[in-house]
């Protein structure tokens, strides 16, 4: 008896049904250079030598830098209880219990995640959970199309470029995605262009399903979210707010300004920055959209004996039941990371989260003053929370030289947004509660020296 899931003849029958001749054709959308090729593995090594080699590789990571890099991923202090509790073996169960109600502890942890996040975003329903903020944003965009039966979504260029790219990938099957430009100059520079948005919404031949904007936006600026919500709703479209969860301790939550859906990256909630993840996609909506939101929804009820019990609710639209008609087939529950977010929020509490957000904003204001004094003023005049862009001539080269001086000077905006000439000299920098005055001093001093060296060289 074969133990593999598919025999060769199974595969042939499936390919025939799809009209394909090889499995490779299923992956045609992936550029060839990015597809897995045969692994070039060196011969086996003794464990001792292998460990030494891996340690040497790991030592090439720079963990000694004074970092001002945010751009969607943020460093925060996490109470040691978070990581310690994640080590408990009870959590390492089958990640999708197919007889979920026997796993009351797993369901309770999901229920608590959903309850905490619902409070934070001020919306009725939170699903657990998604791969990352980009995937959650793409699911939000698809939700607006299903709910309105329209096929066009407007996404602000103030949304993270990676998120815009992910939504564009999801929309490759035929839905339309148009980008709303940012204001290029004046007091609102760097935020969503409301005049352009109104014009795009007015195209009667191409009705809009959803409008997506981020708060704060990719450049760290605060967007006029209530106004964007009004404009979207007046055109019969839904409004998706892309949020950063820690900011919601001090900024108005999506539910307060009329967002129908909130999506965002949960990494700042107790999850360490990691290259490539795993991260945590947050997705929430109003009750009106409860049947459109993909992912697990867990509810609390009482059992036959009147005892508190947790149940998987609204399960019927998931992929194991609905197959190709599921709300999403690109969906998972990042259960352990959702748990980390829950423990983080429960441990630091609402006052602690406000302290985290406010401390970051305070450090960012210190950073702004120090960098301006060093010769790098802000690129945009509008309000920000804890991240902003500064103008640095020859930003990419300065960024590289600061790395040699032990400073990770944020993100080179010309790399992230190569199509935007207003950002050509921009560095995107951020501060959080873990940013120290000494780090800020090091950055400002090194930057001042680099800028004066450039200045004297050009004279």
């Amino acid at each position, binding site marked *: 008896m074969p133990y593999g899931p598919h025999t060769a003849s199974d595969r042939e029958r499936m390919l025939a049904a799809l009209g394909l001749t090889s499995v490779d054709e299923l992956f045609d959308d992936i550029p060839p250079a990015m597809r897995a090729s045969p692994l070039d593995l060196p011969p086996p090594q003794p464990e001792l030598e292998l460990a030494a080699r891996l340690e040497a590789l790991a030592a090439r990571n720079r963990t000694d830098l004074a970092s001002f890099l945010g751009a969607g991923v943020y460093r925060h202090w996490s109470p040691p209880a978070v990581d310690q509790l994640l080590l408990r073996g009870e959590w390492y169960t089958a990640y999708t219990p197919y007889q979920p109600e026997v796993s009351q502890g797993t369901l309770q942890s999901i229920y608590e995640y959903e309850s905490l996040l619902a409070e934070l975003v001020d919306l009725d329903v939170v699903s657990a959970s998604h791969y990352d903020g980009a995937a959650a944003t793409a699911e939000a965009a698809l939700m607006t199309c299903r709910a309105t*039966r329209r096929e066009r979504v407007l996404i602000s260029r103030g949304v993270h470029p990676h998120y815009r790219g992910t939504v564009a990938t999801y929309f490759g099957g035929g839905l339309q995605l148009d980008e709303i430009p940012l204001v290029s100059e004046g007091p609102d520079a760097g935020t969503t262009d409301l005049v352009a948005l109104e014009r795009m919404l007015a195209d009667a031949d191409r009705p809009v399903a959803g409008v997506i904007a981020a708060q704060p936006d990719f450049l760290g600026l605060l967007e006029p979210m209530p106004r964007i919500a009004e404009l979207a709703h007046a055109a019969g479209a839904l409004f998706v707010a892309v949020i950063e969860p820690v900011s919601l301790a001090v900024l108005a939550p999506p539910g307060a300004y009329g967002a129908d859906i909130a999506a965002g990256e949960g990494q700042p909630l107790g999850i360490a920055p990691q290259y490539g993840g795993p991260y945590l996609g947050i997705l929430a909506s109003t009750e009106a959209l409860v*049947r459109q939101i993909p992912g697990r929804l867990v509810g609390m009820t009482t059992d036959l004996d009147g005892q508190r019990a947790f149940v998987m609710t609204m399960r*019927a*639209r998931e992929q194991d*039941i*609905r197959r190709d*008609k599921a709300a999403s087939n690109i969906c998972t529950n990042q259960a352990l990371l959702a748990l980390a977010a829950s423990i983080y929020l429960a441990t630091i509490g609402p006052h602690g989260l406000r302290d985290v957000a406010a401390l970051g904003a305070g450090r960012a204001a210190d950073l702004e003053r120090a960098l301006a004094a060093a010769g790098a003023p802000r690129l945009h005049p509008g309000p920000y929370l804890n991240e902003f862009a500064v103008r640095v001539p020859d930003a990419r080269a300065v960024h590289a030289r600061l790395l040699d001086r032990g400073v990770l000077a944020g993100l080179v905006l010309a790399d992230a947004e190569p199509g935007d000439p207003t950002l050509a000299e921009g560095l995107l920098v951020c501060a959080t509660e873990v940013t120290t005055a000494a780090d800020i001093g090091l950055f400002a001093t090194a930057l001042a020296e680099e800028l004066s060296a450039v200045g004297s060289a050009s004279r």
Partner: protein
Amino acid sequence: MVPADLRYTTDHEWVRLEGDTATVGITQYAADQLGDIVFVELPDVGRSLDQFAAFGVVESVKAVSDLFAPLSGEVTATNPGLTASPEAVNTDPYGDGWMLRIRIADTAQLGELLDAAAYDDLVAAG
């Protein structure tokens, strides 16, 4: 025995014709198979439907299934009572559990539906 004055689809919808208006629901057999119905998703009034194309979704505690239009036409009404009481589909599928009314486009399409005896045979055959 199902009501004799209705027509049926092989997907277990029923249709009652009055003038050019057709009232549509699902059969007792379908409702029994689905179990407790908790939600019915219906199209907006004014939408035009094609015969045998999916027009909505019925959700029970254990499954979500598509609903198929028995006839082509324009939706003129949906049952407002199902929002608060979807269980009417289980308790009274041919009455309070009706789902929508359509102004039909082509009476000839009736010929493609089953009569009560043929539908009974279909159910009996499993």
